[in-house]
């Protein structure tokens, strides 16, 4: 369906918009073309050609009110002044967009088709509809399909969805299982002690976030959003003033040694007047943006802290299935010094989601979150639920635990950061979907004002602080840092926060050391003997990995880059006994003996689940997670 919309506004923008529902060579969610709202009329070949032509922008902007945009047609890499003087850094950060690749231009480019990104896209189109204007919105997604890289518990609070798409029930959103019971257990090796549940999940639902995001993707397309799965945003594009003007997608068809294969395709430059980064926790481009524009310093934010969540979806015996039952546990198998807990949610159709979340500031380098998860499933209170069941999918992802203290200033010249890339997860509630969605909606509203009325994008920050997101995060802000003082103090302070201060505590606890600095050296701990998998409840990594449907074309450069290739064998192995070989839930990192007998780090990049744990936990921050060729990575569908 195409639409040729020309509209005159104060900024004198004429917009050509094509709405499409197409994907890369690996396709997923299909949308019946007849469901898109715009009527088909004008032929679009001319429009398409002008949009896809390189170098010549489809439209010119007049007025300089939008954060310093001037010469948009010359997107040469910026000579950054001020913050980082080094030209090398500038070259690494911003890329020369114009030179040798095609560029496509949009009003808004959104990186990541997750809850935040899609909420922003939908909200933008809704505002367009309300005001009778049109903006072209493009969402790029590195997963092969919308939802392929989405994994979450998930007990869903529909607050933001009610605001965004109030008819979600009528429109058959995959939200059907209401929370029916809410249990909270403290586990020891053999027993489970019931504790009063700190959660209030009365009006919430047990869902598969991957399914919900797929549904949101189809809704976004109905609104005319262009979504392109299978394309990874790998570079940030800047203009001469250092303002972000869009992103560049990965070159495809590059061989492992860097040479071009016969199906080599140069990446495309996607230019946006506003660029929103919605890459999820520890987004690779978002982290660069935060560093470059000093966004944490800008509001005196603390560093971000993280946890690694490892999850499986099981199909269990009918008799054991209680749709809507929600269980959270604390304690075993994690020790008092390691923060974390498990969850077990009964979904629809005999499926249960079970997972273990381990805070990444754990001290023992011999800890393996994956193996702890395997242990958990053998607990006498959990084993009976899973017995006779089969695992359908497996996956892992890191999540934010920093709360309000760690949220960076989310606006930069050219765009904003939304969702978990900024970090709005409410840790005591263990919910981040609703706040991510709301942040996307607020950013969309700010971007709309910027594009149509020339207002400042910083209004996003203002509306965020005035919204229920901030109120919630403020109430939650001391729970997690309290546990840095130990389990008992943590529980004590949490109780005080919850029952006494009721979220209005006058003080703000700070986080401890950054996660990567928290690891102790190996000699102060002893190796942990983990039990062998039994193949029924617990499994080895390759078996689990197979269930994640993860894959990457093997003949491509490894996307996990070592800043210093010597550090693994010079430091990680002797000092910390190679913790990456234990915390990675996909066995990407292995120390294998060479011919000489010396151990060397082998990176099995093909296994990667895109969880980002290595980027976070590597003691010297030597591992950099960069985005591989689009379309690779896990294939989550019910996670």
């Amino acid at each position, binding site marked *: 369906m*195409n639409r040729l919309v020309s509209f005159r506004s104060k900024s004198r923008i004429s917009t050509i918009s*094509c709405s*499409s*529902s*197409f*994907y*890369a*060579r*690996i*396709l*997923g969610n*299909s949308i*019946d*073309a007849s469901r898109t709202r715009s009527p088909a009329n004008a*032929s*679009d*070949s001319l429009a*398409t050609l002008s*949009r*896809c032509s390189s170098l010549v922008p489809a439209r010119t902007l007049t007025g300089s009110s939008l954060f310093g945009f001037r010469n948009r047609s010359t997107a040469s890499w910026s000579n950054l002044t001020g913050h980082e003087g080094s030209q090398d850094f500038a070259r690494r950060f911003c890329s020369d967009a114009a030179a040798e690749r*095609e560029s*496509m231009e949009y009003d808004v480019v959104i990186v990541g088709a997750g809850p935040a990104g899609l909420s922003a896209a939908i909200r933008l189109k809704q505002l367009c509809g309300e005001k009778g204007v049109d903006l072209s919105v493009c969402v790029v997604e590195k997963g*092969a*399909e919308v939802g*392929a890289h989405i994994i979450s518990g998930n007990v869903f609070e529909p607050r933001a969805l009610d605001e965004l798409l109030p008819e979600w029930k009528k429109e058959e959103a995959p939200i059907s299982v209401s929370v029916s019971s809410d249990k909270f257990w403290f586990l020891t090796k053999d027993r489970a002690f019931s504790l009063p549940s700190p959660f209030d999940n009365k009006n919430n639902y047990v869902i598969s976030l991957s*399914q919900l995001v797929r549904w949101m993707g189809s809704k976004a397309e109905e609104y005319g959003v*262009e979504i*392109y799965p299978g*394309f990874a945003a790998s570079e940030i594009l800047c203009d001469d003033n250092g303002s972000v003007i869009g992103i560049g*997608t990965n070159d*495809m*068809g590059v061989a492992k040694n860097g040479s071009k*294969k*016969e*199906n080599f*395709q140069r990446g*495309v430059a*996607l230019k946006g007047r506003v660029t929103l980064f919605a890459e999820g926790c520890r987004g690779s481009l978002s982290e660069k943006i935060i560093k470059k524009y000093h966004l944490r310093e800008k509001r005196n934010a603390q560093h971000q802290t993280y946890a690694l969540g490892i999850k499986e979806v099981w199909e269990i015996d009918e008799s054991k299935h209680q749709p809507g039952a929600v269980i959270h546990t604390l304690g075993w198998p994690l020790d008092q010094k390691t923060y974390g807990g498990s969850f077990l949610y009964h979904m629809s159709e005999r499926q249960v989601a079970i997972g273990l979340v381990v805070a990444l500031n754990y001290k023992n380098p011999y800890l393996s979150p994956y193996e702890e998860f395997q242990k958990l499933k053998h607990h006498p209170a959990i084993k009976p639920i899973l017995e006779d069941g*089969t695992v*359908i999918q497996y996956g892992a992802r890191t999540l934010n635990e920093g709360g309000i203290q760690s949220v960076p200033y989310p606006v930069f010249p050219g765009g904003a950061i939304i969702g978990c890339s900024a970090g709005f997860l409410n840790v005591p509630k263990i919910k981040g979907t609703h706040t991510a969605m709301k942040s996307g909606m607020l950013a969309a509203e700010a971007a709309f004002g910027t594009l149509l009325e020339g207002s400042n994008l910083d209004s996003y920050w203002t509306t965020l602080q005035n919204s229920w997101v901030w109120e919630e995060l403020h109430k939650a802000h001391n729970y997690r840092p309290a546990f840095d003082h130990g389990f008992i103090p943590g529980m004590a302070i949490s109780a005080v926060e919850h029952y006494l201060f009721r979220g209005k505590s006058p003080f703000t606890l700070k986080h401890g050391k950054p996660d990567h600095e928290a690891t102790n050296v190996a000699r102060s701990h002893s190796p942990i003997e983990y039990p062998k998998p039994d193949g029924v409840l617990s499994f080895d990594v390759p078996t689990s990995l*197979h*269930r994640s*449907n*993860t*894959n990457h074309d093997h003949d491509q450069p490894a996307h996990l880059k070592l800043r210093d290739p010597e550090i693994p064998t010079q430091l990680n192995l002797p000092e910390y006994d190679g913790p990456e070989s234990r915390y990675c839930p996909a066995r990407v990192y292995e120390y294998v003996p060479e011919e000489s007998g010396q151990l060397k780090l082998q990176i099995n990049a093909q296994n990667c689940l895109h969880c980002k744990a290595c980027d976070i936990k590597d003691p010297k921050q030597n591992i950099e997670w960069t985005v591989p060729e689009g379309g690779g990575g896990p*294939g989550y*569908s*019910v996670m």
Partner: protein
Amino acid sequence: MKIMVAVKRVIDYAVKIRVKADKSGVETQNVKMSMNPFCEIALEEALRIKEAGLASEVVAVTMGPKQSIDTLRTGLAMGADRGIHVEATGDLFPLAVAKLFKALVEIEKPGLIILGKQAIDNDCNQTGQMVAGLLGWPQGTFASKVVLDKEKQEVMVDREVDGGLETVCLNLPAVITTDLRLNQPRYATLPNIMKAKSKPVKKYTPEELNVAMKSDLEVVEVTEPPKRKAGVLVSSVDELIDKLKNEAHVI
């Protein structure tokens, strides 16, 4: 000359397959689907022939339910000029597909038909051969190299056979089925994906093509292969022989 390429929507090759609880088939709900890898290779070959100037048009054909249009659009994004979607629900066995193909060939009159050697869901390896049989056309299957000679109106095909490579020379019009080593399919670029949406897709139903869809085949049961049992270490050759004879009953 027009080239017709068959593309099929199948479960993505990287997905872990599960059998449905009622054993009627494989679970396809919430499962990622993609174009059959051999069909990608077939389409790539057709596009290369067209880019070499030896063909005027590449038409991608798919048969299946409504969602198969996605696969067609991928084909268009890769570079096919037009798409044909034969909308048919239910199991589509190779003979029915071949009959539908024959009906389409009578309408479109292509000079070359390229298909993947087999689909990765049913592994039949029959459709291409049946199409050639129904049309009475020569066939070059398991192609690892295709060289078209426009003037002589013939095509040389290197076939991967058990004994090695066999080269056959086919008069056009002909049917070719592709094997893995023929080429490396191209990626669909973003601009091509956008251009693809304006490319025409014609829809047909089996009734319109006068093909009866009744099948002589019926899937009775689908089960998982038996789980591999752990191996047993034997301590001597005698013990091995004893086990082979008395436990495994193979000698």
